[in-house]
């Protein structure tokens, strides 16, 4: 067995308690170990991506128990890619948190950060539905701590909502898993796929209930429209570097939808045929529309970026809901892009909030206004899907993949108009925040506010490191644009692998080869 597969889970699982128990009073050591851990995770992620890119599906049996009985970790192209994305995202965020001093505004930032990475990597690698639930819980529990990091009454209040919503989501997850177990008698994803295909058509009512419940759970995580209410309040009130890390959490929902609904309830499975795509697509279209309108209507930069996250999830899920290999390849490329772009914008929003507060109204100029404005401009171009950066490539791929779909008109219309509204909203915010600032310089009413902003930006130990981290995220987007060809080749092969679930099933259940 290849022990690299379990390494992305084991490394943070060991590092996080080590940071809590041994280094809890040494912030500098915590920072060193945390960054070293993320770099090591990146190394591991690159190794397993290199291993998976050959096309073999590798299985790691925990405790050496054979597949349907024990829990398995499965490494295929998609899970390797998502782990790599997690590590790539974590590096600038941890550097930014150190540079901006966010990690010292409360306790245990770095430990919680690594627990969160453990949960995310585990969710991507596991091949067992109940284990997926457990890793969801790991990442959620860590996120509760990170969400309320730094305290403050508004943040705690938003935290209560966030925890309550996710507890309800977890309960729904258990109901869904219980239903599926009751019907199929197994929780191994590959085994579920086999049992579902064998089920006589007249016994599939409960199975459909389970499949839809499961879809609901993943849609809560992915913030699809009727279930998106938790996202703006929690992301906007979380510490913004944490919100940047949460950009990967919505993608865990998207990943789970792709995984379960290509493997177990795929397009060719009779029992659940048309169940997912037909419901998911209108919801995704509405998600994009609401996200774009939210960007236009937001009064606060953090809320605006949260709606950017919703809009990009809408685009992503439109691509996923087509359930064709081309659309899935586009979706996987777009996952990479939208995670990095959302995280970049959250980090820039934090730079803005630290300097002048987050309200989208004209205020006196802030320090380093030009640099922050330039970074905001890059992030806005990326998230809106304007030409030079990878958002443009991603949206183009999605539009191209949707060309043959039955309701291509609706998809094209909403994506294009949604992008336009997004551009208008971001341009409005950018000009109010960065350009109008010189008009109000001498306005009398702004004097007290200026004092308060000064007070807020006082703990600013290494802004250089914070900027380096943000530039790292920009570099990631530029690389993704420059190497769009190889990246797309990889995601196309990934999609191809996803739409031949037989290979996954035989790799998991076929025993040792």
């Amino acid at each position, binding site marked *: 067995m290849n022990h690299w597969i379990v390494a992305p889970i084991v490394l943070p699982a060991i590092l996080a308690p080590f940071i809590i128990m041994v280094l809890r009073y040494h912030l500098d050591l915590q920072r060193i170990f945390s960054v070293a851990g993320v770099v090591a995770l990146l190394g591991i992620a690159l190794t397993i991506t290199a291993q998976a890119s050959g096309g073999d599906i590798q299985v790691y049996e925990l405790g050496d128990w054979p597949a349907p009985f024990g829990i398995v970790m499965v490494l295929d192209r998609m899970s390797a890619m998502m782990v790599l994305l997690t590590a790539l995202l974590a590096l600038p965020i941890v550097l930014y948190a150190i540079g901006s001093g966010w990690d010292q505004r409360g306790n245990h930032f770095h430990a919680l950060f690594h627990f969160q990475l453990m949960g995310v990597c585990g969710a991507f690698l596991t091949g067992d539905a*109940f284990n997926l639930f457990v890793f969801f819980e790991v990442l959620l529990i860590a996120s509760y701590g990170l969400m309320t990091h730094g305290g403050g009454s508004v943040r705690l209040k938003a935290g209560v*909502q966030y925890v309550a919503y996710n507890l309800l989501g977890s309960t729904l997850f258990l109901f869904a898993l219980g239903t599926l177990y009751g019907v199929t008698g197994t929780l191994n994803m590959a085994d579920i796929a086999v049992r579902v295909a064998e089920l006589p058509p007249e016994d599939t009512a409960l199975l459909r209930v389970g499949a839809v419940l499961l879809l609901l759970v993943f849609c809560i995580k992915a913030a699809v429209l009727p279930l998106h209410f938790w996202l703006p309040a929690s992301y906007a009130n979380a510490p913004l570097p944490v919100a940047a890390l949460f950009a990967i959490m919505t993608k865990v929902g998207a990943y789970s939808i792709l995984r379960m609904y290509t493997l177990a309830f795929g397009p060719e499975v009779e029992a659940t045929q048309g169940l997912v795509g037909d419901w998911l697509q209108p919801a995704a279209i509405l998600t994009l529309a609401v996200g774009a309108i939210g960007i236009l209507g937001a009064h606060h930069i953090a809320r605006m970026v949260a709606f950017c996250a919703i809009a990009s999830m809408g685009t992503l899920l439109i691509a996923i809901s087509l359930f064709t290999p081309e659309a899935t390849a586009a979706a996987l490329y777009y996952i990479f892009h939208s995670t990095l772009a959302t995280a970049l914008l959250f980090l820039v929003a934090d730079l803005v909030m630290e300097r002048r507060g987050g309200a989208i109204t004209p205020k006196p100029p802030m320090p380093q206004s030009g640099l922050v404005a330039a970074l905001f401009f890059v992030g806005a171009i990326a998230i809106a899907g304007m030409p030079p950066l990878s958002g443009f490539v991603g949206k183009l791929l999605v539009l191209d993949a949707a060309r043959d779909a039955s309701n291509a008109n609706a998809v094209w219309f909403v994506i294009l108009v949604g992008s336009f509204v997004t551009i208008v909203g971001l341009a409005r915010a950018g000009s109010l925040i960065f350009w109008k600032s010189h008009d109000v310089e001498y306005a009398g009413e702004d004097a007290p506010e200026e004092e308060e902003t000064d007070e807020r930006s006082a703990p600013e130990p290494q802004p250089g490191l914070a900027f380096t981290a943000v530039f790292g995220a920009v570099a990631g987007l530029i690389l993704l644009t420059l190497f769009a060809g190889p990246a797309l080749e990889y995601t196309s092969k990934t999609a191809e692998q996803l739409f031949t679930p037989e290979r996954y099933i035989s790799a998991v259940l076929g025993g040792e080869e």
Partner: protein
Amino acid sequence: MEALVASAVGVLTAAGIFLILRRRTFPVILGLSLITYAVNVFLFATGRLALNAPAVLNKYEEVPYTDPLPQALVLTAIVISFGMTAVIVMIALSAYLSSKDDHIDMTAQDCVDAPGEDA
């Protein structure tokens, strides 16, 4: 017995949903606890209900047994939901103590969050 268990799950879930839709945090947390009880009973029943049967296979003779896997799942679910209820109680308590207000919904002022701002 099936009817009894099924209606227990149903009543617990209904009561839980009713409480979750309340405006203050305490009933919401109670509602979440009720729903987690409901899901625990539900998970237990997914292995089919069997009376007086051990949760292990007997190597020597054919005796009825009950499915052990849902019991393990329930154990995990209980631990997680118990821990999470404790977490939400702590967060809700500190939110209440810092804002002197235990409404679960946020007002418009709350959402524009930076302290140095005019809402």
